[in-house]
């Protein structure tokens, strides 16, 4: 069964550094998402992406965040200058269409900012 994959599984970085989290969505999916989960808290929506554009973003997704689909298979989340509070599990998800369809989640990247 096709799966969403994410790399790296774990990343440790210093405050102020840039990080890029990578995702390979399911191949025939057209909608892509990033969510995050701070340790012990619920999962929060960050951004959705379709047709090379952001279709929706949350208040968390400020100017230090950006997303990109650099080629036909990868979908990335960049955090420009990491803060301690960016430490979290970041999940990528994809779906065939937008709205009323299943979103399939990747295994997550655990980011620790020191």
């Amino acid at each position: 069964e096709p799966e969403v994959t994410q790399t790296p599984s774990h990343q440790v970085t210093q405050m102020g550094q840039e990080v890029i989290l990578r995702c390979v969505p399911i191949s025939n999916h057209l909608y892509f998402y990033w969510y995050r989960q701070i340790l012990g808290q619920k999962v929060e929506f960050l951004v959705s992406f379709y047709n090379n554009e952001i279709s929706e973003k949350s208040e968390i997704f400020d100017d230090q965040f950006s997303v990109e689909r650099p080629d036909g298979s990868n979908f990335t989340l960049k955090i420009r200058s990491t803060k301690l509070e960016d430490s979290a599990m970041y999940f990528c998800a994809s779906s065939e269409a937008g709205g009323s369809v299943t979103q399939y989640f990747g295994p997550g990247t655990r980011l620790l900012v020191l």
Partner: protein
Amino acid sequence: GIQVEQSPPDLILQEGANSTLRCNFSDSVNNLQWFHQNPWGQLINLFYIPSGTKQNGRLSATTVATERYSLLYISSSQTTDSGVYFCAGGSGSRLTFGEGTQLTVNP
């Protein structure tokens, strides 16, 4: 935005017991999913169920869309069922998650 309330927040069972988890939504949703978060943090998709009833082995789910709630049933629980169960819903591309139910199944 949509508010999602899950109950109970914690549940401890003996192996073999049955349980019901509930999810209430503050507004109508046309996208509703149940997830199990395993000890490694992975979100395992259990059901996509904006309405109706579905079953998958020992798990089943029912959503009453007109009353804005969904139920997840776990029968004959096993220790491997332990973890956090999340429901999430939305009316567009954004899924809003509940706080989760922490389930512990003891042998």
